[in-house]
């Protein structure tokens, strides 16, 4: 499977590296990049299909439920830095909603399930900076693009039309419309200086370069997020 086809299959976990992307862009494909500087573009393949190609993110943050003490300092750090206010709902790392009863919510077996009302395991949701980001691909106005420096999928707040398409599309429940500003929020890796990781008092969140992040987030022995839930509550 070559990278061109791969790029068209948004479900695939493999992705186009930044180097490959630049090669693609420079190879004189039919069609042109919409905006090369934004690290993504729409191309036409030889057989005439339009495909979106995204430069990979430089990496992603990964959360370790085993070290997490549920303090939510990451959430406050995220929104104070990026929004000038404290909030859990629009934090781009989601701890609060899974804190007490885990990702799956209250069950009859809550006392043994994830969360502080159960086995104490706190599993956060984090943005995976997906190689083919559902949020960005769903956005009807192209307001979500890859940051040219970090590769993070970032929202251009001036272009965001508050439709919530990204929120509906994100499989991890990260993209969130701020109820106060009506603008989409999602992890932008803090311009390369993730504030949540610095403020975690147990070292439970770390930034990993893409290959490692991909393995941790999507690999068979993933330790974070959705994959950890079934393993942990088994």
């Amino acid at each position: 499977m070559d990278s061109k086809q791969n790029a068209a299959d948004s479900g695939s976990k493999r992705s186009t590296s930044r180097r490959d992307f630049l090669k693609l862009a420079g190879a004189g494909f039919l069609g042109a990049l919409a905006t090369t500087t934004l690290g993504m573009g729409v191309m036409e393949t030889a057989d005439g299909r339009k495909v979106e190609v995204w430069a990979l993110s430089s990496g992603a943050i990964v959360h370790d439920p085993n070290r997490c003490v549920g303090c939510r300092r990451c959430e406050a750090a995220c929104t104070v830095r990026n929004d000038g206010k404290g909030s859990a709902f629009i934090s781009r790392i989601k701890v609060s909603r899974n804190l007490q009863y885990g990702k799956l919510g209250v069950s009859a077996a809550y006392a043994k399930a994830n969360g502080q009302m159960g086995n104490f395991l706190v599993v956060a949701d984090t943005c995976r900076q997906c190689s083919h980001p559902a949020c960005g691909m769903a956005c009807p106005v192209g307001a979500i693009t890859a940051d040219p420096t970090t590769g993070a999928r970032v929202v251009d707040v001036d272009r965001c039309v508050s439709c919530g398409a990204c929120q509906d599309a994100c499989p991890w429940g990260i993209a969130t419309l701020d109820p106060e500003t009506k603008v989409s929020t999602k992890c932008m890796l803090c311009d390369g200086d993730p504030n949540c990781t610095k403020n975690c008092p147990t070292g439970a969140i770390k930034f990993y370069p893409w290959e490692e992040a991909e393995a941790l987030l999507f690999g068979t022995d993933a330790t974070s997020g959705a994959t950890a839930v079934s393993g942990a509550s088994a």
Partner: protein
Amino acid sequence: MTNTFGYTGKILRVDLTTGKIWTDDTMKYKDFIGGEGMSMKIMWDEVPAGTHPFSPENKIIFGSGPLCGTGVPCSGRTNITSLLPSNPDHSVSSSHMGGYFSVEMKYAGWDLIVVEGKSAKPVWLRIEDDKVWLEDGRWVWGKGMFDAMAMISSQMGKEAQIAMIGPAGENQLNLSVIRTGASHSAGGHGGVMGSKNLKAIAIKGTGSVKVAARPEELMALDKYMMTIIGANNQHVVPRFPHPWAEYTASGSRWTAKKGLYWGAANPPVETGECYPEDMQSVGLRTHKGFQDLGAVAEKYTVSMGGCAHCPIRCHSQVRIPQLEERYGIDPNVSNTCVGYSGPNGIMFKGTPDLPGQEKGEQSMISKTLGSHLADDYGVWCNYGQMGRDLNWTYTHGILKKVLPADEYASISWDLLEKGDPAFLIDFYDRVANKKGELWHIADGSYWIDKRWNLGEEYWAYDKNKLWSKLGYPVHHANESQSQVGALVSCFSNRDAQNHSHSNFGAAGVPLELLKQVAAEEFGTPDAIDGPMDYTPMNQGKANFVKWALTRTMLHNSLTLCNWMWPMAFSPLKSRNYRGDTALEAKFYSLVTGIPMTKEDLDRAATRTFTLFRALTIRSMGTADMRNKHDQTTSWVITATKDKNGKEIPQFTKGTDRMTQEDMEKGRGLVYKAFGWDEKTGAPTKATLEALGMPEVAAELAAKGLLPA
């Protein structure tokens, strides 16, 4: 409503009698800062003296402060203020809980929640941002808190934060709690919610708390604060040697070390060396399983827990399979300090390990079982007093006398005698469900004495640890910073719940350094004594007392955790271990945009503490606080004896006892420091007016409660 930073600007008001729900403006109370301060003002304005705590006219106020919700370290606690049922005069008092409730209040848009009246049938209050309504409470009434919280969460959503009472609160026990989350209890006011037929308040907030300063400014101050913070109780010196540490302190809660793990984590997490400059290990410094449950608990420890936006994590979260194997209860238990030792105090005959058990295993089982039961039923231990009261009344044959013979015979005293924790299961069921006569053990010491006639020797016995005839025990009193702890403990209507002075004294640095910092803060190194090596009262100690009382009031108003704040010391040798006692003001100014110096905030806290004093005067109907309120029990001012029965005179090495004369001098100096009348300890008209409370002066004058 004006646009506000820090504050949401709104107070939620609920009248359960009429079902009316309305909004009030926070900023009209801003001189009282927030949380406890604003609650005191509302109690003064709206709840007349002589109101019974369980009557519909009483109000219960859930308070957060302007720093809560902004990520300021240790800013997650909730202040609860109401009339206190266990107090003889039903004076106003506050209880406090950690967790995430107040942050959710703020994110839903509410600084305070004031509940009054009484619902005709059980209800719970549902808050989803600005949508607020009452839900039928029939299905959750009578249920233990763990299940009832799950029921409400399944209805409302897993992210709801809930403050709830258990059967003990429903049954209006004086000693009952309001709890939130897995392990955060506020003792004393559960029955007030019960009397209102209010099972719970549940909140979901999707909003925010806005910060006035630029994000970089607050982030920079936060980072600075994180270099000053220590371990639990702001202990800045570790217990065990570390390559970086100049000192160690045997009582320190900085218990992390190489080879000490959260043993039940998968894989185990090592607490390690925790260099003070390393912000990513602050949450590992305090191994509370090891601290509270003993070395045996290491391998049962899953992780630590605590409150919103606090990096310290003072609750241990443990998994004890024995609880399920033996008693059929959930193995996952979380709590802290007296949350474990209080319920375990019921097992006053001890809990010796059984053959085949590890050292300390039975005690760990007893503590976790007791904590789970107390948390589910919602019984308050009165800061450990319930166990001592049971001990006294059992051992002195009082229970045998006052309990009907068949009730007495039906209690499994043999389990207690053997040290079998199963005794707790029967005990909490009887008490929480008001069975027979035994449940009156949860009336609180003053009322137990009235009912069962315990007599003077009960109050005078030092091991009963009763501090005041108002019925509350020692909570960092004479054993903690000499007269400072002793006097701090004389001004409250329940256990003093003051850690400003105890954290200061227990910071862990050598006495010489403590004295230097005391000189900087209180004007003289003599404000501090060495342990069990006390000197007579002096002005520096009076300044220290005032500082401790007002700082704690300030923290409960901002809301910051007084189990951590103030930041008087730091773990940094490079700072010569100095902390920063202006940090509260720096955070307040940045968050709210209202510039305040340390002195400004101290003055605001003095105002609030003086109002609290006025409330106590009004409920007691006397201005003579010195004689009617501020006295201790007799053991405090009686010399102890050494091993050979020889008296150890006060103010010599080896005793922490006080004298009446010295305490009276101390009271006078503290009254004076507050600008109160030195004879009675009541605020004067001039002081009340200077603090901007002429209406308080006028009402006290009209009632004849101003000092001459």
